[in-house]
């Protein structure tokens, strides 16, 4: 399980724009680097990031090797109702890591 930092408000007013910042620990190995023997280090990146809000997808990103290590993604979404935001990161091997946060919307 990679270390994750997620920053978003605990509560918001209905219709307010919520800013979300996410950071996940991952080397984002490009597949172009050579090891000390001159062999290519295989590509291993997070290629997709998704955010759902009470089950509905509100944002997703396709990532390529040009995204820096320990990927940082900041985006926003409208506070529509109280509930759960689920963040997931999927890597080249098809492994997915998921984190969730609650939000209260008045």
């Amino acid at each position, binding site marked *: 399980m990679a270390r994750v930092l997620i*920053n978003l408000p605990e509560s918001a007013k209905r219709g307010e724009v919520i800013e979300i910042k996410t*950071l996940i*620990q991952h*080397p984002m190995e490009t597949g172009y680097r050579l090891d000390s023997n001159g062999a290519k280090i295989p590509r291993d990146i997070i290629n997709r990031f998704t955010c759902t809000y009470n089950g509905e997808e509100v944002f997703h990103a396709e990532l390529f090797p040009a995204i*820096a*290590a*320990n990927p*940082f993604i900041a985006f926003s979404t409208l506070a529509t109702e109280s509930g759960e935001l689920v963040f997931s990161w999927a890597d080249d091997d098809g492994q997915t890591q998921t984190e969730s946060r609650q939000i209260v919307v008045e």
Partner: protein
Amino acid sequence: MRSLLAVALALLAAAAMAAEVAPEARRSGYDLASPEVRAMQDDDTANPGMLWVSQGESLWAKRAGAAALSCQDCHGEARTRMKGVAARYPAFDAALGRPIDLEQRINLCRTERQRAESLAWESEELLALTAFVARQSHGLPIAVDDSPELKPFSALGDELFHRREGQLNLSCSQCHDDNWGKRLAGSVIPQGHPSGYPVYRLEWQSLGSLQRRLRNCMTGVRTEPYEYGAPEAVALELYLMERARGMTIETPAVRP
């Protein structure tokens, strides 16, 4: 590399006298970094180094070793009990009769108290724990001890800092005392104060220790870097912290 040689020749040509940085002229690498690097450091929610600090926080409470103890079991809450600790490392260890740095102190606890395996240099776990402990001194001034027993070691560090070495025949002092603020291959030369370690170095794309950074410098002047944990390495760390005494701890700093 050719540009480094050019600088080396220029430095040799200019009759450079070792000019220590005056206390009031001391600047952290932060002050010399670009606005983007500074912004990355300032925002705790976006500073990549905080990923390791967060990991360290979990490790602090994790039981380990034959003694099945966590750091917390002996030390309690890090927020209060570790406050100011990193600010006075390297510190003299009476049992060993020499100074040790924070990484070595953590490993002494691991092996002697927890009766666990020591953590490898630059391992995720050691970096995380060091970053977490050092973070508890964030905002505090560097305050390494002034005691007589440290004198011979800081004197060694002082000598190493001023000694020319490597194929490029450069001393730390020539870049970091005499030419700080100027550019070396497009990068601004900092004064070399270890105020934000362990540091998230963009070049590494990872958090790393002061010893790792010193090894990079030594490779840069084409000399054999000190082994991790070597007495010279710790003596140099001690000297650098003394040279930076009073400056504010920024861990985890972000640097290019």
